[in-house]
């Protein structure tokens, strides 16, 4: 059985998942027994294989994935600085043309394409001019909705304790409720050995790091939008640039995740 890292949010699919985490359709099964988390609490569930070596390997991989995502996110401000320094600016500049300077479907090309939409909106192109099938506008709108949804999810995450649980071969070993301030309650199954205890500690660490990473994603997007707004002309530019910044950040993280999945596939293959 391969290791599974699942995040469940009440009644919705998590947006902007990074590292090893996959979304789990709510309501989650809380494994063995009738226990239920606070219905509003995010649940981070780690399911590991029975083989201790494979379980440790899965956690090591997850730790590396989160660390890589952290590193990639940390490069975003500098990358945006470089892009905005070299990009032409002004009301008459078309970012769509700027995006042609990048290979199609790269994060940069996608971002400039959305920034072009922001520029056109900024220049007062009304909604009536967007015919059905305007793919570029639809992409901008989709990014806006995704960012808005992500923001809503983050709001709920900061207001609640998170549940982190570790299962090995379908058996629940431990559960921790952890608040943002670090307060935590952990319940361990009796008579666990040191290796099993370590598995939960590491699972908890991966979950907590990912939670902080999601918060950093938000700040990277908002900080990125402020940088991109320098290419636009009105004070509302940063708000209009949020979808472009969101797209840029999530595309970079998606590339990292795809690469990780491929590497992981090769390792297992």
């Amino acid at each position, binding site marked *: 059985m391969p290791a599974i890292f699942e995040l469940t949010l009440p009644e919705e699919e998590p947006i902007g998942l990074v590292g090893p985490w996959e979304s789990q359709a709510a309501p989650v099964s809380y494994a063995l027994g009738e226990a239920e988390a606070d219905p509003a609490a995010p649940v981070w569930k780690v399911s590991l294989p029975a083989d201790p070596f494979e379980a440790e390997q899965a956690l090591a991989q997850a730790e590396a994935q989160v660390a890589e995502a952290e590193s990639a996110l940390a490069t975003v401000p500098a990358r945006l600085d470089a892009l905005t320094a070299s990009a032409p600016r002004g009301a008459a500049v078309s970012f769509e043309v700027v995006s042609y300077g990048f290979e199609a479907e790269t994060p940069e090309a996608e971002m400039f394409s959305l920034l072009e939409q922001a520029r056109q909106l900024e220049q007062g192109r009304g*909604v009536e001019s*967007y015919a059905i099938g*305007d793919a570029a506008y639809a992409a901008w709108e989709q990014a806006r909705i995704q960012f808005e949804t992500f923001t809503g999810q983050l*709001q709920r995450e900061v207001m609640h*304790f998170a549940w982190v649980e570790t299962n090995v071969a379908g058996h629940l070993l431990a*559960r921790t409720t952890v608040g943002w301030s670090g307060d935590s*309650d952990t319940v361990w199954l009796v008579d666990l050995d040191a290796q099993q205890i370590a598995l939960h500690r590491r699972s908890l660490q991966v979950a907590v790091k990912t939670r902080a990473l999601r918060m950093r994603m938000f700040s990277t997007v908002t900080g990125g939008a402020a940088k991109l707004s320098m290419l636009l002309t009105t004070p509302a530019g940063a*708000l209009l640039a949020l979808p472009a910044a969101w797209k840029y950040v999530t595309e970079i993280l998606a590339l990292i995740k795809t690469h990780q999945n491929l590497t992981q596939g090769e390792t297992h293959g």
Partner: protein
Amino acid sequence: MSKPRPTADIPAMPDFSKDETPVPSAPEPAPVPQAESAPVANYGWFDAESQGKLADSTQNFIQKLGSFLSKALDDALTLDVRTYVSEDIGSVTYDKEKSELVGSVQLRAMTYVKIDGDTLVCVPETDGELDTAVWAVHMDMVNQARESRAELMKAIVSTAGSLASVFTPKS
């Protein structure tokens, strides 16, 4: 279908439309009753009602973050870590009112640290002796909680800072 976009300051693209092969004109369409609303996508962003939707949701988050930050700062004055064991872990639930795990659990260790250094510790014992195994696990969790708190606070503070840049009009 993409609409023409302003491209001043950049080289103009050749107008290929002039070189297009002439296409026979289609027969004159029969008059069609005009629909009440034109087939235009209303994406809901720049109409009067929802113009500030993104701003609202982000500002809403700032407000929530603000109240959360003040609560988190209050919470940060203490650190509360508890370690339980259970033979039936599936029956354990979290009681929000009491802020503790309830059900078939046994509290084995507890650490409560105040910012001024005052510390309350409940040490696990078995047959009158310190249960070193549980104690070691508990201390690991306390250290992990300290690290988590530092990391998360850093993320929150950085978020608050970046939000200011979005809502501060540029000069």
